[in-house]
């Protein structure tokens, strides 16, 4: 009896706990997206769309129902009303959900994952508002538009993968689409390079967005320390962590340079952002980078 009574409420409690981040994430992303004014996204030529483009004299072959009778009534010529071609772009997001992204050294313990998820969702909202279709790599679904897809993305972003470093899977990316990779790119770089190369081969342009924790940039460690990876698979012991700082920072800047050159080779955009910096600026940059690639 008690079990039965307890079960629904317990389930609900867990469900609510689980669901709690979504509205917050959605709301945050929505609020973030509102800061950018969404402009028109037309192709500046006639085609399928909703916006009026031009009236042209009807030609042979035009269906009678295509004739705009109101405009034609003003003269003796039949006019056809043409609309601007609005082709929707597909944008594939790969947000790194690995353990590595769970690291935080900040006082509010905002992880790189949270930062990346926020940016992903906000950008998704923006893109959907612009009529683009959006897909999240980890879901494996084709790019879609609409609130349902947004909720699905939000759900997908709140999961995490129990792996050390994430690897993007570009196999189901639509050709000629856009890709956004959000990660700390601190794992082995070879899978990333492979993924970017494969995407570029299929004509996919995109953005490499590196998200780092301030501690990863400052390396404020001293004394004898065993550094373990977030999933615990790898560790490194040092007796004087302070001595490692210089060499670590060298390696970090090497990695950044490698990412930048990778992006440049593939015609992609690259940027690096810290989790203690404003998400708005990062969102603006990414939006602009995507638009640039579109034109």
């Amino acid at each position: 009896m008690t079990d039965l009574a307890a079960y629904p409420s317990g389930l609900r409690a867990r469900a609510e706990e689980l669901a709690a981040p979504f509205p917050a994430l959605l709301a945050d992303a929505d609020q973030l997206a509102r800061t950018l004014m969404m402009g028109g996204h037309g192709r500046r030529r006639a085609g399928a769309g909703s916006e009026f483009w031009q009236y042209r004299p009807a030609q042979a072959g035009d269906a009678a129902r295509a004739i705009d009778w109101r405009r034609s009534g003003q003269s003796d010529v039949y006019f056809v009303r043409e609309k601007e071609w609005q082709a929707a772009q597909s944008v594939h997001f790969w947000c790194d959900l690995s353990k590595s992204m769970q690291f935080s050294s900040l006082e509010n313990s905002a992880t790189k994952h949270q930062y990346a998820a926020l940016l992903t969702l906000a950008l998704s909202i923006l893109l959907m508002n612009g009529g683009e279709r959006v897909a999240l790599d980890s879901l494996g679904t084709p790019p879609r538009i609409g609130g349902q897809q947004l909720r699905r993305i939000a759900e997908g972003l709140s999961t995490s993968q129990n792996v050390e470093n994430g690897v993007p899977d570009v196999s189901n990316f639509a050709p000629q689409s856009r890709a956004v990779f959000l990660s700390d790119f601190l794992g082995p770089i070879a899978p990333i390079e492979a993924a970017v190369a494969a995407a570029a081969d299929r004509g996919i342009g995109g953005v490499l967005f590196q998200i780092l924790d301030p501690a990863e940039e400052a390396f404020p460690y001293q004394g004898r320390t065993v550094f373990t990876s977030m999933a615990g698979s790898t560790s490194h012991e040092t007796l004087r962590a302070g001595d490692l700082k210089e060499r670590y920072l060298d390696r970090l800047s090497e990695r950044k340079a490698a990412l930048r050159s990778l992006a440049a080779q593939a015609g992609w955009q690259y940027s690096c952002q810290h989790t203690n910096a404003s998400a708005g600026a990062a969102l603006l940059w990414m939006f602009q980078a995507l638009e640039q690639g579109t034109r």
Partner: protein
Amino acid sequence: MWVLGPIGFAAPFLLWALLILPVLWLLLRAVPPAPKRQQFAAVFLLLGLDDKEAQAARSPWWMTLLRMLAVAALIVAFSGPVLNPQSGEDDDGPLIILVDGTWADAPVWSSQMARVDEILAQADRSDRLVAVSVATDTPAQGLTFKPARMWRADLVGFSPAPYVPDADALLRAIDVVDQEASTLWVSSGLDYPRRLDVLAALERLGAVSVIETPRNVLALGPVMRADGGVNAVVHSLGSAPDREVTVSAIGPDPSGIERVLGHVSLAVSAGATPVEFALRPELRNRVTRFEIDKEPSAAAVQLVADSLKRPKVALISGQSEGGDIDLLSPLHYLRAAFEQSSDIIEGTFDDLVAANPDVIVLADVARLAGDENAKLLEWTSKGGQLLRFAGEKLAASDVARDGIDPLMPVTLRAGGRSIGGAMSWGEPKLLRPFAEASPFFGLEIPDDVAVTSQVLAQPEPELAARVIATLADGTPLVTRKTVGQGQVVLFHVTANAQWSTLPLSGLFVSMLQRLTSASSVGEAQDSDLQRQVLSPTLLLDGFGDLHDAGLSEPVSGEVFSNASASAKTPAGIYETQDRAFALNVFGPTSKLVAAQWPSSVEMIGAQNAAEVSLKPVLLMLALAALALDLLAVLMLTGRVTYKGAAPLFIAGCVFAMGVSNPNILLAQSAGAQQDAFLQAASSELTLAYVLTGDKAVDDVSRQGLVGLSQALAARTSVEPAVPMGVNLETDPLGVFPILYWPITLSQPPLSAQSYSKLNAYMRSGGMLFFDTRDGDISGFGQATPLGTKLRDIAYALDVPPLEPVPQDHVLTRSFYLLDAFPGRYVGADVWLQKSFDQEPSSEGMPFRNLNDNVSPVIIGANDWASAWAVTEDGRALRPVGSGYVGEQQREMAYRFGINLMMYVLTGSYKSDQVHVPALLERLGE
């Protein structure tokens, strides 16, 4: 116990553990401080980055040393190190503990006894038989051995004696012991006669070890009269280089209460330091003893008895002095005789009698004026000593011819007689040896004392009893008669050498001294004491306190004159019929001699006599080392940065741990104590009661005021603190609003300072609340003992005119409306300051307009404290009345208390309240 130098180890086998230290060294060196674990996402970037300094894989050497130190300290600590280990702990043979127990031990007696107790505790642990003896008080049956436990209870019965040990008695006691026994001799550090014999006897029984406390022994030497005061010598022996001591002269003040009459502070160095007292003759005559303050030892006290007293002798001659040759003057010989020992005053008769001398000498004065006669008689009967000398005038006059003159011991025959002259028969008469009843008994009579002329006494029945010196033919030479408390003595010869050679001889001086009690210490004492019996009245104990001698055995003068303080003749005051003699611990020839010990005895110094366990110290050391290690590890592993305040904080903690020591807070000085008292009394309103010295009464006072305080706190906005007892002599009074003073018969008289303090207190707004506590028997017109006592106490107080509390007094309505003031008793009047009755009560007004001050004194008899008193758990302490009526009476007592406090605190405020309606009315307009 294994002893290494000054340190012994209770568990020395643990020290073997020190051998593992080298192993530990290697182990500790090999194990670096534990790393801290840090999750780090970019660990892949770190892979392959090696440390530059490979040596850091091992602990730094100093950290290893620190840990070794900690471990070593722990090992040594648990091996039970003891500084100054007690030797002979392993012995289990019989033990003799011999305590010198002289006055020199007295200042440190309690610590000596604690030391002995410690030794006994140790002996008890090893089940030894012990004989404890105080050398000055050896048991008659000799030393007896008992288990140590039984001695520990007896220790409180031992006390130091005011004399040195008697070696003979001690040897007899030691001789009784028929077994081997080691000895522990607790020495005072002073030598005494034949001490080495005792030591030899003890060494025959077994090993002797000596505990000697090196400390400063002080003694006050005999006090000598000097010009303008007295001189004495403070003897000092021992370590303290320069000690500041105060020597006080103590004696009764005019009201008979013992007080310090003078004191001198001086720095005493080793050896003899002279002390000079400036004392006026008035004060000097009153001094009974000198003592060194804060040195509770019999040798620090010098009893003076009568030796400092110099009688005042008034000399009156019947002849005019003018132009006479000195040798013919009747006063010349008297002056010479009294000069040494007395203060001589001369002048007109009225002045002399007014100066109230001890002795008045009338040299050949026949007739006095009627007025003078009466004065002289009065003076004599109050204890004066009248010495009369015969002469031409007396012989020619008709004084005491027809009957006994009140100022003459005998009736005289007309004329007189001359013997041995040219016109007479017979030789000049010699003196007959003094009879036993005579005050001159025992004095040597020189051969050359001869009498040629004298006045003759009428043979009468009383004559024989009155004669105290006779000539060889039995004719009275000196006669005496008591008058009241004094006496009249007549020398039947002149005071100059005309009639006899007596004034030329030393006998004259001795006789006068015996008559006037005017001898000084040292001179003529032996002769004074010849054939006298002295009975002790006050005896000194080892601590230098005087006690009543009780039924102590009298001592003969011959013995006394050669006696030094001993068990038979203890130091104290001894009295003959008319004089008091002092026998002091420290005589004129006494010296402080340090005890020398042969090398055969084992010396145990007292300062290192106490075992000091080093375990706590070592454990603290280990702890401190570990704390430092912790700090170092934290810094090495980067958990604490160099910049942070944490290392400083931790170091501070470690330092404070090591340094902080409760002993730093030494005893507070008296001033600080007084400050504390004032602070406690003034931080809140505090009721106070006078400490009467009777504990039961004081307790009831305190509990009564506690009860009143509780009632006040419960019913009014007055919330007093815990009541305080006040010692009128020492404590400041000004901070208390009221002093409850229960009168007891045992209340000691107050000093003049206390009276002035109390008067100042009353003048500055304080109130004394006297409670004679006899409301059941006192009443109007009845003098009770406590009432009389109150009168005695209050005579010097500035008490205003009193009246019973009038019915319209503020006290009757300051909080409750009361018509009686019951305490434990009902009905006795309560008296307070008489109010100014200027305004008669006006029409329709129930109260007179009394706006006078708060009465500085309230006197009652109803034993209020008993009615108020509550126990700790809030129950009433004393019954009041019976049943419900009694409880109602107690309630009324509380109400009186509250009214009283309101009266004390608000004064006539309630009386002013009658004006409130008028004031309000005026304001309304």
